[in-house]
Structure formats: structure tokens, C-alpha cells
């Protein structure tokens, strides 16, 4: 059984030899690629802390077997900023205090980036809340999260950068 895969993670090609087909993308990132920004809150798709972008779309990395994703293009929270320059979603989360403990934050931010790319929420806070509801925050930073998503979306739209997000 050949269990080696190759992924592009944050723009870098990574060849990985898996010793076990049970390894999820989440555990692969955290335990084997030292990308611990992506968090494990429930390991069964109920909290969203592990949200990453897979081929441009937000997914729960705890629900993805690594072995099934040979050749995939992955973006994690570590790959979002351009050097020292934060992505507009990251900057907006700071400005609107869209987090407290910060544990769900990488997932919230990746989910927000995915949402903005989906381009379906518009500037309606209610639709943003709905579309961000797969990402739990126990501290209760939802008000700031919603404001941050709306602002970042506007920033990106203004900059005409939606596709570059």
C-alpha cells in the first residue's frame, strides 16, 4: 500500500509518507508538518476550529483523511499574511476584537476568507452570521467577528482584490 502523498501547503510543496491511512489533514498539519495554527476543538466537524482552505474552499480539516487529498492545494492560517502584512481579514479581527482566547480564531478567519470568496453573503450581517455559524466561539466574540468579516469584505471589494484573497 503506497501511503505517500504530496500536497501544496501555503504555496510550498510537501511530500509526506503516511504511516497510517487514518491520519486526518488536521493531524497531518499539526503533528507532522508543524503547522499548529490550525486547531483541534472537537475532531468531528462540530466546532470549525480546524477550518482551512482546500483548493480554495473552506473545509473542516478534521473531517478529511490526508490520504484522500494527494495533490491538493491547502491554505492554512500560517499562509494568509504576506510577510509582515496581515491579510485584511486578520487585520479586521484585531481591529474589531473578534476574538478573546484566540483558539477558535484561525478557524474563524479561514472560514471568513472562504465566505468572502464564496461571495454570497453580501453586506447583510444576518447572512454573515448564518454563514459563520459553523465556527463556534465559546468566549462569545461573535459581535466582533461579524463586524470584522463585513469590514474585511468591504476592504477587499474596495481594493478589487477578491480573487486575490
Amino acid at each position: 500500500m503506497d501511503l505517500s502523498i504530496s500536497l501544496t501547503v501555503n504555496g510550498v510543496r510537501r511530500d509526506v509518507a503516511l504511516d497510517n491511512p487514518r491520519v486526518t489533514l488536521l493531524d497531518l498539519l499539526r503533528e507532522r508538518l508543524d503547522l499548529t495554527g490550525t486547531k483541534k476543538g472537537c475532531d468531528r466537524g462540530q466546532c470549525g476550529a480546524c477550518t482551512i482552505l482546500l483548493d480554495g474552499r473552506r473545509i473542516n480539516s478534521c473531517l478529511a483523511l490526508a490520504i484522500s487529498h494527494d495533490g491538493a492545494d491547502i491554505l492554512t492560517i500560517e499562509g494568509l499574511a504576506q510577510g509582515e502584512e496581515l491579510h485584511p481579514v486578520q487585520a479586521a479581527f484585531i481591529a474589531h476584537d473578534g476574538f478573546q482566547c484566540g483558539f477558535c480564531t484561525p478557524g474563524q478567519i479561514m472560514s471568513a476568507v472562504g465566505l468572502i470568496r464564496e461571495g454570497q453573503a453580501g453586506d447583510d450581517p444576518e447572512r454573515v452570521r448564518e454563514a459563520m455559524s459553523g465556527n463556534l466561539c465559546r468566549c462569545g466574540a461573535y459581535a466582533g467577528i461579524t463586524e470584522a468579516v463585513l469590514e474585511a469584505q468591504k476592504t477587499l471589494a474596495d481594493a478589487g482584490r477578491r480573487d486575490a484573497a
Partner: protein
Amino acid sequence: MSPEIRLSTTPAHARHGSSIGQPLTRRDGALKVTGGARYAADNHPEGMVHAVLATSSIARGRVTFLDLDAAKAHPGVLAVMTPANRPPLAEDPDAKLHPFMFRLDLLQNDLVRYAGQPIAVVIAETLEAATEGAALLAPRYETLPARVGLDGDTPFIPAAVGIGNPAEVRIGDVEAGLAGAATRIEAVYETPAQYHNAMEPHAIVAAWDGDALSIDTPSQALAMAQGRIAGLFGIAPDNIHIRSPFLGGGFGSKGFITGPQALGILAARMVGRPVKLVLRREQMYGPVGHRAPTRQRLRLGVGRDGTLTALGHHAKTTSSTYDDFFEPAADVAHTLYASPAIATSHEAVRIDTGTPLFMRAPGEATGSIALESAIDETAWACGMDPLAFRLKNYAEVEPISGKPFSSKALRECYAQGAERFGWSRRPFAPRQMRDEDGLLVGWGMGTATFPALMFQAEARAVLKRDGTGVMESGTHDMGQGAWTAFAQIAADALGLDMARTEFRAGTSDLPDAGIAGGSAHTATAGMAIHHAGAAVIARLADLATGDARSPLFGAGNAGVVARDGRLFRRGDESRSESYGDILARAGLGEIDARGTSAADPDAQASYAMHAHGAVFAEVKVDPDLGQIRATRLVGAFAAGRVINSRLVRSQYYGGMIWGVSFALHEQAVADPRSGRILNANLGEYHIPVNADVPALEALIVEEHDPHVNALGIKGVGEIGVTGTAGAVANAVWHATGRRCRRFPIRLDDLLTGR
């Protein structure tokens, strides 16, 4: 070695004078939005292996068999730790030497005392192998009938509730007050078991080097954790180094080292390699504490003029069979409403559960939703507006003690909150309002309260010749903003701006910052920082004012002001000298000093100290489906001095969302037969999602408290839960005319009997 924490050094806002009071963005913000903030489970020391717990599926009995051979035979499994081979401990995990010590399940025997109790630990090269090994253990049990719920066993009166509060307290004669009342209300309210469910599961990475122990684990009380581990393992506290720079939420569940964390340390000792042990979400519904369920009976008597004649608050709760923690739910009645007669009492049953623990506003949250509901019911029975009734019974002094309040801006909270919410437009009777979609609309309110506590803490301040300063205190950032707020206090204490102040926190080798709990961390550690800063400035002033070469010579300590890295002669700003110049002339690279803090016993004897608030809630209820949505919340809170309004507002929001959750969402359901928690996951244990959260407003009401501590700080972390839960429940009544007394309110509570 402590991890390097790269905090932002440039405040987002220009500083005008003091750093305290500036609504700065979080200094750990960039780390948290880039994935750079390192939580315990993010560590991966060389040679690290993984430990996974096997936990009991029964609530009471004994483990009779574990398939050790199968587990050990699985590729990658290194060891299986059971009661038979667990490394020895220096202290019995069932010892209880003081009330802050909780008994732990560390494989001391084969007995099972709650569902989810650790019964073995499998250690393997990979997480997958350890997980598989734990599954292969396939335990068998001798099972005894589980005792479940508030009626699970014979009730008794606990010796104390909370930490050392008397179970029964009374002033006046409640029975006489009720007998003489024009209006009497008696009602029973039930609140469920709740689990903290911090987003970050409890985790530990432990590595031994001889008798030295290095640990990454989230802790709300580093020094206490260090002491507890030292006792268990028989090593000196100084030999234990704990790093906890960021907690992924705590809410009380990370206040004490829990059994699973200690098992991670044992596993590391057993295999002689660094070990990571992270709880699975479902494993957080047993050994790491919870909020116990309550059944509360409220009795209120009111005279013809609308003033209370009696207030009786009785709470029944549960605890474990093997340890003591009793939710002090009735104590909230001590402080809020004036009544000549108040009686609070508690009783409890012991059931087959993990020991309950402090959970965000322990006692206050549970008690508040019952008391605020009962107050609302009473106001209605008296024909009075709920706000008017609360004002009529406003406590000018703390009712239970007769002490004056150190400060109490609750009237202003009521006024500002009501104004902002539009309370004056509320129809008196229920079921009067509908929205454009035909949904029933209701408005309710509740009073929020939480004691202003102080524990003990220490800090160390350093001033350096290069004009910078360092402040050290092992504070804990679990989301409240410790990295930012304490740095603001530190900068002011050192007379420096933020950019020249380094604040060190989050590790056990720093001065003991006490506990991040009881909403007291900012006040407690903040005062230690304040004192340390004053002490080091005093040393610096001594150097300058005693030196004839200094422009400050002869000014004396009282005559010097520290600001912007310089000491100024009071009253003559033209005479000043920079910190660096003073130190350079003295031939010193740096000077340091320590400061401590503790509650002032004189002030405590003289004053009642509490934060207060008023919360107004709007809900909408689908009359046919019973679906409830909280749509609007306005809270107005007075909690002394605000260090950083951006962070404080977030704390209020978080608390208010917890209040909504308490009233409408969260509840652990125990199987009445097995004692297992049936919804031990985030899909079925409902905490609010983004779309469940209403439009929120938190008003910060100005309050100056000259007694609570020199900085005038009260706490803000927990008060938001109180008041809100009751406000939502009262709004549901106002929308529907139906009084729900069992929480969370379920749709069938609103639809039955239609």
C-alpha cells in the same frame, strides 16, 4: 526556557497621558490571527510521544478487565498505564489538605465513580496508534446502579458552599415577613448541569529531566498548579516549569490541575520521553469539572407599598460521591434587593458524577436566573413595572450585612440601560407585541451583580539604564486580555509608555500572579504590578534625590513624579532627570523591586464590594413553533475603573452570550439509567452559534470606587452572565405570557397545553 512571545509593541492608538484607560487593541492580536500563538498542544519537543485516555463507560462500579495484550500488540504502542503499573505518587490523589485541593482520578484503584473517568492511559509513537490502543482495551466492568440527578440520593446540608460560605444564612424572620405580606410568590426553578467547554480541550505536554519537570499546559493559576504537581510527585515546586502563555478559554475549568493533566505527567515518567496528552471533546464531560444542576425555591413577600417583606432562597444541588463542591446558588439573594428578612439555604445530594467546579459566575449565574425570574413574577403580581419594582427595593446598603457599598452605580445602570433599550415603551402586560412577521415580541430585564474580589499576587519591576522597563508577573491570558491590560497598568506603574515597557507573563518562574478567577485577576495582579512599579520608582527616586549631582537633589520621594521615563520634581517641571541618567550616574545597569497585593481587611470589614449592572432583553417567539430567538440585548455595567474599554466590552459581550445560552441553549443530559452524559459533544451540547447571538450593546457606566483597591478596579469577566439569563427568561414570559421555570427554556415548554 520560556517561549519567546512576540507581542505587538506599538499601540493602535496614540497615548494621551496614561496608558490605563486607552482602548488599545490586543498586543497578542497579531499572534492570534496568524496562528503564531502557541497553545499547550501546539508544542512538540524532540522525542515526544502521545498518550490517550481510556475512560469509563459506566458511572459506578469497578473495572474487571482490560485487554492489555491487544493494546500492547498494536504497532506503535509503547505502554499501557493502569492501576497495576502506574508510577508511584508522593501524595494520595484522594487527599484533601485544603478546600482548594480537589481529589483526582489518577488510576489509584479499579473503582469507577463517574462516567468518563480515566481508567487507563495508552502511550504510543503516534496519536493514531495511541487512540487505537485505547480502543482495543475493550474494558469490562462490574456495574452498580448509578445515582443520577437532583433526586438521585438522600439530600443533606453541606458544611459549606462555594469555598467556605455557610450553607444557611438568615437575617430577620422570613416566615413572619411572608405571613404579613400583601402579596406572596413561591416558585421553583431548575437549572441543568452545564460543562465549561472551552474551545481548547485540556492538554499537556510534559517532559521529565531527572527530577525536573517541564510542562506546557493551560492554567488559570500557575503557582497553584505548580504546588499541586509538586505535592503529587514529591518534587520541589522550583523544579517544575510550567508555560501557559495562552489559554484557549478556561471559564473555571483550568483553575486547578485536573486528573488528565497529571496523568500526562505520569505517562511521561513511565515511558521516559516527553508526552502529549490532549482530551478528546467527549472526555471533557467528566474529569474536568462542570456546573452542577440546581433546583431553587424562591419565596417572596411584598407589602402594599411594593416593598419586600421577606426573601427566601433555597437551592438544592448535586456533588460527587468523593469530593465537595456545592454550587452556592442562593447566595445571590444576599446582596441585590433590600428586604428586612432574608433567608438563604442549600442542600445537596451526592451522585455518580465528576466533581462539579467553579464555572463562570459559579452560584451567581444559577442563582441570578431564579432570583431575577422571581422578582419579575413578583412585580407582575404586584401590578408594578419590573424596573419600578427593582428601584422600589433598591438596596442602599448590602442587605445581608448592613454594610455600605464601596460604590454602587446600579441606579445609573438601570437608567442608562433602560433609556438605550427604550424600556419606557414596554407594555405592562405580556403577549402585547408582535413584529411584522407575526412573531410574538417580549421585553424583559434583570439585575446583574458579581462580587469585587481580591486574591494575592506578586510582581517584580525592573528599570534599565537604556530607559526601558520590565514588569514580571505570572498572569494568565485566557481571553480577557491579560497581555494587554496588565501591560497598560505596568506602563503607568513604571512611568513609561507601552513601547518601552516589557511585560512578562504566563510562566511559573515569574512572580505568583494568583488566580485568573473570581473576576479578580485584573484587580489582584494589577495591584501587585502597581505596587511593584511604585517600589522601583521609589528606589530610583532615592538614587536621584539623595545625589547632589541630580537636578532632583533634595526633592524627597513625595516630591517626585514619574512620567515618560523621567522623574520630575513636583511643582517644578523644569527640574527633571531621565531614568537612564539616574541609573548611569549611579553606575547601575538596572534596579528592581517587588510589589504584592491582597485584599485590604479594613476595607472589607467596612464595605460590601460588588460590581453591578442592568440587562434588558428582547426576544421573539414563533407562536406556533415555539422557536425563541433573542434579538436584542442592552447591558449597562458599573464595575469601577476600566483599564481598556475595548477588552471590557468584549468581556461583557461574552458574559451576555453566556446568559443567553443559560436561558435558551445549554444543558448536559445525563442518562437516568447509566449516568452517562448523552450529549457529550458540541453538536448536541448546544452553545450559541453566531446566528443565535442577538444585536448586543454593552454600556460602560462610570463608577469611581475609592475603597475596593487603589486602582479602583472591580471585575468584569463574569457579571455579564448574571442578569442576562433572567432578562431573557423574563422576556420570554413577556412575549408569550408563559412563565418557564426550567432552564434552558424548551420549545415544548411554550407549546404544551395549547
